[in-house]
Structure formats: structure tokens, C-alpha cells
């Protein structure tokens, strides 16, 4: 399980930003991290106490819980390169870590 990514995506129900973030993220994950991640989607309208515990203000927010360091990416994740960068993940570095 080494190198497995644990991700949480905080969204607000069916808003356009939230839905876009979900689609954009699934794209990135399926292309770059297939089989190497666990994603938990949290709707802050349904579970506001989880947003309180994690001190989430902006939505959507993607939180990378593992591997450390913890990173957060705010927004609808519309720029794939920046998302990868935000996850400390580039195509090259992923290759190295798997080797």
C-alpha cells in the first residue's frame, strides 16, 4: 500500500463548481493515479461538522491527506497541470517514485 493516495473532496451539493471539480478530479485520477488512490467525497451541506473539524471554508476543496505533507487545492480543478503540481505529483516524479 506504500504510496497510496488518500484524498478528500469537499463539495457543496449539486453546485456547478462542485460538479465540475468532481469531473475534473476523476479525469486526473483515472489518468494519473489509477488504482493508487482512495477518494472520499464530502458534501458540507450534509456533513457540516466534518467541514468544521477540517476547517474548510472554500468549496470545492481537495485535500490530500496522505502521503504527507498535507496539501489543499481550492477551486473546480479546471487546470490539470496545476492540480498535479498541487498534489506534489508530476508525470515524471510519479514514474520515479514507482521505480
Amino acid at each position, binding site marked *: 500500500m506504500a504510496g497510496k493516495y488518500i484524498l478528500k473532496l*469537499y*463539495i*457543496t451539493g449539486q*453546485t456547478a*463548481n*462542485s460538479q*465540475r*471539480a468532481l469531473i*475534473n478530479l476523476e479525469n486526473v485520477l483515472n489518468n494519473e493515479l489509477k488504482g493508487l488512490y482512495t477518494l472520499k467525497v464530502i458534501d*458540507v*451541506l450534509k456533513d*457540516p*461538522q466534518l*467541514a*468544521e473539524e477540517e*476547517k*474548510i*471554508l*472554500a*468549496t*470545492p*476543496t481537495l*485535500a490530500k491527506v496522505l502521503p504527507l*505533507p*498535507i*496539501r*489543499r*487545492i*481550492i*477551486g*473546480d*480543478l*479546471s*487546470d490539470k497541470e*496545476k*492540480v498535479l*503540481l*498541487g498534489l506534489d505529483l508530476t508525470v515524471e516524479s510519479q514514474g520515479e517514485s514507482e521505480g
Partner: protein
Amino acid sequence: MIKKLGRVFSGIPGFDEISHGGVPKGRTTLISGASGSGKTVFSVQFLYEGIMNFGENGVFVTFEENPTDIIRNTKSFGWNIEKLVRENKWAFVDASPDDADSTVVGKYDLGGFLARIEYAVKKVRAKKVAIDSVSALFTHYQDPGIIRRELYRVASTLKKMNVTCIMTAERPTEEGQISRFGVEEFVSDNVILLHNRLNKRGGRGRTIEIIKFRGAGHDSEEAPLIVDKEGMSVYPRPKPKLRGKGFSQKISTGIKGLDELLFGGVYKNSSTLVTGTSGTGKTVTTLHFIMEGAERGEKSILIEFEESPGQLYSNAHSFGWDLEKHVERGIVQLVCHYPEDLRAEQYLDMIQDLVVRNKTKRLALDSLSALQRIYSEEKFREFAIGLNAFLKMQNVTSLLTNTTSQFLGITEITETHLSTATDNIIILKYVELGGEMRRLLSVLKQRGSMHKKELMEFEVTPKGVQILGPFEGVENLMSGSARRIEIRFDEEEAEREFIKESTRGRI
């Protein structure tokens, strides 16, 4: 009910006076000021007093200090916020900076923030929310357009929930724009400025200034603001122009001789404390006060913890007063309770309901001591202050009684803070003279007016209280307490001097 007033008391001493009844209910009010002007203390106290005095729970949204710091920093004011959190009366939304590193990729909103506020409001059934300070959001997210839109969304959501909100904002400098990032644009209906400037004597002085309130009156001048060991207090400027209205009109206490001592009676809308040992004539004084109003057709409330309606009617009857008739006609609302019947908040609610519904002009409560016996000191103080603040706002003239022991009378008044909560204090006392017990009456203070300071002798006759005249040629009537009176007067004088000083320095 209270709803139609459209205001919510802050409970911050003096603020409800300069704002003519508190901040607009169900709206957001912006509190803007440079750093060190007292924004956080104002916000915390706004919630704290609401919970303690009016049973209005609160949500505190903090952007700068974390909740632990706020709890610790406000302990010195004697506020136990930790306890209120435990009792589910106070909730924090912790938006203080954390270590998590974040970047922005694409479009976002503050849906998480809004969801957390709504959640906290529902959790403690909050009536008030304080957000301190929204400027942090602008520095954190660097997109003023989004933040303004989102704060507007917070304000309108709270409005729908009928929750009253204050938002603080950082002011770049003492002069110039109201707040950084134009926060006032979307809460522009209600704006308050806190100032902290150098004064002429080289020290710093805080003041508060209400810039605007939506469709509502307020004082427009700056008022001195003090933060001391009990928190924040505002000192409203004296209002000489309002002479002939409100606080400068005198009304009769119903006792002729007492009115003379008070130079024409008590001020309308003032509160009077009648304090004395058991059996000195407090209840008959109460009856004088109520009957005087009732005879003029003034709607009155008499809250009686010491006697039953029957006892009270026959008591009044023995002085030739038909109290029952006024009660039947609805001029006098008679409320007889055992003190234990209701909790302090319930008594406050009940009184507020009655006053608003009946447009009450006079209220008498006999006696505060009955409540003092069963409440903690803190609770009792809150009740007395809360009641007094409410009656002031509603322009009710009140008379409250207090039972003291023979020798500690005056010390007790000052200790329970009743002396600061009431405008006028009248002392009743038994004195032993020439082998007789005689009755003594004296006006200890009357706020904003001259009064005679003599120790008067009085009797309770079939016509009620009759003032006979001053005790002459006798010393030490007040025994060991005489020195105490002097101290009180000095404090009063000092307080007046202080306010005079602080207002003069500003003109």
C-alpha cells in the same frame, strides 16, 4: 412582542443608549476600526451579554485568534466562555489560520464557510452571530469580488434565519475610508466605527461612533469607550438639548415629602431602588408609587414576591386605596409569584411581554431580595442589569425594593452592583432614639439631579408614608455606615468628573 422593535440589545453598557435600543435585528452591522480599537472585545461582549442577560445564544466566527486564545484572553473580564460552550449556548466557527498549505485552481466559493455558520447557528439555536474580522478573508483569498459576494450571501442567509450579525473589518488608518476592500458596500445599512486616537493630553482615547443605521435613530456624536477589567463600556454624552423630554421630566413617587427631597420627584424612565430592613415600609412605598400612576391612568405592573394578592389588596385598603379596582380595569397588572416559580430568564421574558403588550409606564418589583435569595450572585446581577436595560429602552419608570440587614445596608447595595444598575437610591431604616424605634428615610443618590441629603423621619400612617421632617441635633444615625455614604458620593463625583473630562477633551 419584542419583534416589532426591530432591535437587539448589545448588553454593552451605554451602547444600547447611544444606539437608541441596540443593533438592527436580523441584520448585519459592520464594526470597523483600526487595530487596537476594540473590535474583538466588542464582538465577544456582544455575544456574551446576550447569553447572560437576554438568553440569546451566540456563534462566534473567528479569523485571527483561535477559540482557545479567545477563551483565555477574555477570562480577565470574568467571562467564562468555556462554560457557555459546554452548556451549548456559545459555538465557535474556527476560521483561524492553520498550517495546511493551499493553492487555488479554478473557480470556488465559500460554501464550506456558510455551511459551518448555519450548522453552528442551528446547533446552539443562536440569535446572534459575530464575525471577527472579515478582512482576513480578503488577505487570504486575494479575490475581493468573490469574498464580497460570499459575505453578502452570509449576511442574507442570516437575515433569512432572523439572526442578528455583527461583522468586524480592519480599517487601514484612523481617517479616510471606512474599511479596507469596501466591506461596507454590502452591509452599508448599518455601520459603526471604533476609534483609537491620540488625544490632546498625549494619551490614547477610544471612542465609538455610529455612522448609520437603516431607517432608525441613533446618536450621531462619538462617545467615549472604555475597556477595563469588566469589559467594554460606552459613556453616552449628556444630552442638554433633550430637556423637557425623556429623562428630564420628573414624575411623582406618590409620596409628597419624598418628591420634595428629590426636587420634584424621580425622572421619568429612571429606576429607583428602595432599600431597607424588613418592616420599614418598602411595600407601602411600592403601593404609593403604583397608586400614583394608576390614579393618572398610567398602565402599571406590580410584581410581588412577598405577599399574595389578597394580602396586598387589604394592605392597600388599610391606606384607603382600591388597588383591586385598578387591577380589574387592567390599569395595574398584578403579578404575584413565589420567587422559585420561574427562572430568571423566564421572569425577564414575562416582564418584557407584559411591558410591550400593555405599553406599561410604571413598574414596581417587591422585592429583588426574594430573587437574590435563590439566584447565584452572577445570575442575580444579570437579572437586575437586564431588567433595568430593558425598562430604560421601553421608557418605563421603575421602583424596585431590596431588603437589607440593619447594619450592613449600604455595603450590601454597593456589593451587589445594584447601585450602578439603578439611578436613584432611597434608604429606609429603623433608628433607636430616646428609647424608641423611629423610622428614617434618606435619598442616597439621584442620578442627574440635585436632591436633599438630610436624614428624614417618617411614619406609616393610615394615609401611607408621611415625612415628618429632618432628625435634628442627632449624630451617627446611620451608625457605622455613615462613612460608607461619603465613599459612594465620592465615587459618583469621580464618575461625573471622568465623563465630563473625556467628553470635553473631544470637542
